[in-house]
Structures are given as structure tokens and as C-alpha cells.
């Protein structure tokens, strides 16, 4: 599965995108897995209330299931317009 990071999430983790091989059942499971990797991930995911998530380019929440999903993106609240 491709995992994408935008804005300060991208800056904190240090890369815009990576392929992740995971058995995580939900977005939250994936977050826990990433948090356990390295300090920069733990820092980026420290407060998930400050984050938003899209699964296959649709906004969703952290309970969303990941079966069959190709792309997950993490980013701060959007500031368009």
C-alpha cells in the first residue's frame, strides 16, 4: 500500500510517500504500526486529533478499514481557498 504525507506531516517524517507492507486492519492500526517505527513517525502521529486521513483519495476517519486499499494519505486540516 502507498502511504502519502502532506504539509508538516511530510516535513516531520521527511518523505512525501512510501510503500508500506502491512496487515493493519484499520487506519488506526496503521498509525500504531508507524508510530512504533522511529521517533520522526512518533512525532508526526503524536496527536491524531491534529491530523486528517484520506483512503484511496476519499476523506475518512481513523476507524476506516484498510482491506483492498491502495493508497492512504495523512495530512493536517486543509487550508484551501
Amino acid at each position: 500500500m502507498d502511504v502519502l504525507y502532506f504539509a508538516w506531516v511530510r516535513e516531520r517524517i521527511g518523505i512525501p510517500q512510501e510503500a508500506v507492507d502491512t496487515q493493519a486492519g484499520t487506519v488506526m492500526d496503521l498509525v500504531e504500526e508507524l508510530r512504533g517505527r522511529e521517533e520522526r513517525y512518533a512525532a508526526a502521529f503524536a496527536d491524531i486529533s491534529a491530523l486528517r486521513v484520506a483512503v484511496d483519495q476519499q476523506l475518512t476517519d481513523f476507524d476506516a478499514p484498510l482491506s483492498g486499499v491502495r493508497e492512504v494519505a495523512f495530512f493536517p486540516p486543509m487550508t484551501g481557498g
Partner: protein
Amino acid sequence: MRIVVQDAPFDLGTEAAGFAEGRAVSGAVVTFTGIVRDVDGGLQAMEIEHYPGMTEAALTEIAEQAISRWSLEDALVIHRHGRLEVGDMIMMVATAARHRKDAFEAAEYLMDYLKSRAPFWKREVTADGADWVAARDEDEDALGRW
């Protein structure tokens, strides 16, 4: 309906005139244009990041919602990304409806959703460095009225 996401500038005059041209069904056309504003007097640039693919899909969905809800004859959304200077136009929306109330409401709806539901992130560059713009509670709250 037309959705444009680009780093190049757009021409408000051409876009507004083209959008309004020859409408005989719609009596009302509203446009909104967002411009980079130097809030505290030290802004050097505004950088806009987006999520290619999802951006176009999200804007299309928002515009389709507006067209259906207010029976619009047409809607236009243009949003830039990349580096912009003070005074540059960031984005515009346009709506065409039979009555002015619908054209105004639909344009405000497009703006409210575009602010908080389209995957753009703004960063302000000043002499002190660059800071991501924080989402404002009132922009999130604005969605509550729809």
C-alpha cells in the same frame, strides 16, 4: 462544469467573461476570487501544496453538490498551487443560476467546502522563515450551515 488545478496564473477577466458569455437561462452570475493578502506586512510568498488526483476529485464532488442543490446552470472552480506572491490570485469560483440568491449561496457553499474539504495546504514565507497556515475553527464551523 469546469475544474482547473494548475500552478500557472489564470486570467480573471477572461474566465469571468467566458463563464458569463451568452447565458440566456441564468439571470445571475456570481464570482469569488481569492487573492494573496499581506496580513501582517511581512509576507514574502505564499506556497500552496496539494494532493494531485484527490484535489481534482474533491473539487469535482463539491461542484457537483452545488450544481445539484441550487440547480445551477454551470459552475467553475480554478485553484492554483505552488509559489504565489502578494497580490496574486489564488483561486476563483463562479456560479450561474436563474436567481441571485441561488448563485450567491452556491458560491459561498463552494468556498466553504473548498476551504476545509479540498486537499490544499498553505504555507506563509516571511523573513523569519516559513509557517504552515493553521486551519481556522470558523472555517470548519462555516460548514455547519449547509
